[in-house]
């Protein structure tokens, strides 16, 4: 038993939270405009969208799988959402419901094939990535939709209060929902149980197939919300939405202490993972550093976080022994 101080560090989110705080302080010393109200607005908008993307991957990591199709589902929903408003002139709330339905259906379809065939989620979601992306490009022919209603554009760009954008609202709801899922709801505990030990979960009577399908449907739902938030923020339905989600969707949960073999995830840790990535990306822009360096930094962050998580696992194992 360590003292209170070291035990606090066994929490998943304390480390990333401290890193975020230090990063904010250091950067704002060198670049005071970092804490300007406009910059905070931009930062929070990026965090909000990326949190949804990370949560979409988190639920699949929890069940011990991976979802390569996350970005292509988000992209398909984004252009469908825009197309419903531009071509069919549907009111925004109806289009949102349509987008959510497409996301859930796409996710559930992946989950169904994975659960029923037992083929690795990697291969099925790689096929899904191509299929959803192909449908996206087939519909759009790589041209964006521009006819986005003003109310949607406002939601993606205006502030709710002070420097807090409206986009933070879906993020807070989704994060609270996911926290409740993993800590309070039966289905969330089933997901973690399967990720932790598949055989034990099956022996204790959990319906593996149904739970895996639920997890993928939920992942599709979160990807759909993220895709539509990006349409609101960019003010166009761009077919390239979702292409660059893969790396960051894994980076944030891993920085937040998620165990990649499943069974252990942290919503709060993931949030601070998203914050760290957003701060670093912003800082590179503020200091006018080549944007391609972001890729290198993201890759490095994943390796660093994996290393930290390994060290903690070793320490926990030793403490138990």
């Amino acid at each position, binding site marked *: 038993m360590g003292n209170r101080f070291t035990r606090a560090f066994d929490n998943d989110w304390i480390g990333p939270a401290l890193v975020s705080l230090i990063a904010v302080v250091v950067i704002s010393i060198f670049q005071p405009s970092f804490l300007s109200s406009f910059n905070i607005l931009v930062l929070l908008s990026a965090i909000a969208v990326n949190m949804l993307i990370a949560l979409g991957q988190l639920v699949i990591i929890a069940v011990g799988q991976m979802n390569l199709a996350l970005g292509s589902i988000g992209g398909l929903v984004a252009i469908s959402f825009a197309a419903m408003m531009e071509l069919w002139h549907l009111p925004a709330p109806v289009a949102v419901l349509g987008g959510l339905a497409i996301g859930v259906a796409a996710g559930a379809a992946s989950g169904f094939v994975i659960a029923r065939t037992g083929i690795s989620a990697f291969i099925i979601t790689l096929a899904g990535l191509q299929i959803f992306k192909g449908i996206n490009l087939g519909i759009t022919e790589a041209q964006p939709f521009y006819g986005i209603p003003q109310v949607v554009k406002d939601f993606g760009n205006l502030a709710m209060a002070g420097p807090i954008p409206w986009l933070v609202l879906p993020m807070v709801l989704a994060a609270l929902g996911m926290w409740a899922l993993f800590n309070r709801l039966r289905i969330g505990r089933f997901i973690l149980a399967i990720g932790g030990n598949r055989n034990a979960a099956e022996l204790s009577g959990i319906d593996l197939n149904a739970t895996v399908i639920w997890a993928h449907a939920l992942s599709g739902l979160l990807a759909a919300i993220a895709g539509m938030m990006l349409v609101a923020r960019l003010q166009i339905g761009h077919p390239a939405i979702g292409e660059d989600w893969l790396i960051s969707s894994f980076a944030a949960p891993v920085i937040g202490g998620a165990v990649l073999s499943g069974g252990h995830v942290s919503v709060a840790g993931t949030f601070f993972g998203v914050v760290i990535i957003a701060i670093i990306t912003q800082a590179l822009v503020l200091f006018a550093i080549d944007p391609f360096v972001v890729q*290198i930094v993201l890759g490095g962050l*994943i390796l660093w976080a994996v290393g930290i998580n390994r060290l903690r696992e070793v320490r926990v194992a030793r403490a138990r022994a």
Partner: protein
Amino acid sequence: MMAAAAETPEAAATGGPTSIQKLLFSNEFGLVVLVLLAFLVFGGMLPGYTSPFSLFAMGRQIGIDTMIGLAMMAVIVTGGLDLSVGAIGVSSAMAFGWLVEHQGLPLALAIPGALVFGGLLGAINGYAVVRSGVHSFIITLASMSIFFGVMIFLTKAEAFRGLPPEVAAFGRLRLATGTSVLLAVSLATCIALSVFYRFTILGRRMLAAGANARAAEVSGVRTGRVFVACHALTGALAAAAGLMLTARTGAAVPSMAGQLGQDWLLPAFLAPVLGGTLLSGGRVAVVGTLLGAAFVNVITSGLLQLRIGEFWIQACLGLMLLAAVLADRGRHLILRRRGLI
């Protein structure tokens, strides 16, 4: 490996499958039938399909896709995977361009240089996977981002277009029968890899360690080193694929495998999986990978000439991967039920 196991006397005594049956039920035979069928159907429907130019272009693409598939196959043997094949391939092609254009190296030195460079990048992946014990998915996800980012940073995203004319001439070269020389390169690589996995100690150790790492370790194989070698082989083959693409384009272009090299992922998995490589490791299908790449391109080029739209082809390829794994699963179930495997 599996074929060798089935030829034991016990199998013969209990009325196991004959060698003819085994051939008919093999992945490779099924693929040959499918390739021929698709070729005949499209050839009958489309007059331009069997034109010399169409056949040349198809053969060239089959050559490149086969090499990409072999690169992934070499690491699937370990039960892992390598998301960074595209990034390694492009980085090696760019290294090749740099060696030729800025260092003035002759091609005879620059080509092996690029292959070794790719092998080194692969070995870095392998070392990180073996030492950390983290799944290769997450390690290569990170290294894909790092390799590609460093490459773009160093090249400033600019292509090497001043390569010697021999490079582009090689990409256009036709053999006596009108097929692309790139297809011949891949065929030669397939033969070399078949020999490597069947007759060399390292190749056999790779299969043994991939099938059952603990058993291999107990029988004296240093599985860590073998796995690093698998990743290095993947890197070298990815570099070869990058060089072939460079020969086709006549220039080393940073965007030739898409964002982070992700465009290679589908061909990289499609060909080996269609060909019957086990994703859990321990079994390779070298010829199957070639046939898988051939099948994909026979279909793709047919669909392209039918003008169903370039964009829908991507969705078709995804469906094909899905159909391939489902068909494979179904075939296994049927064969097992009949006691044929």
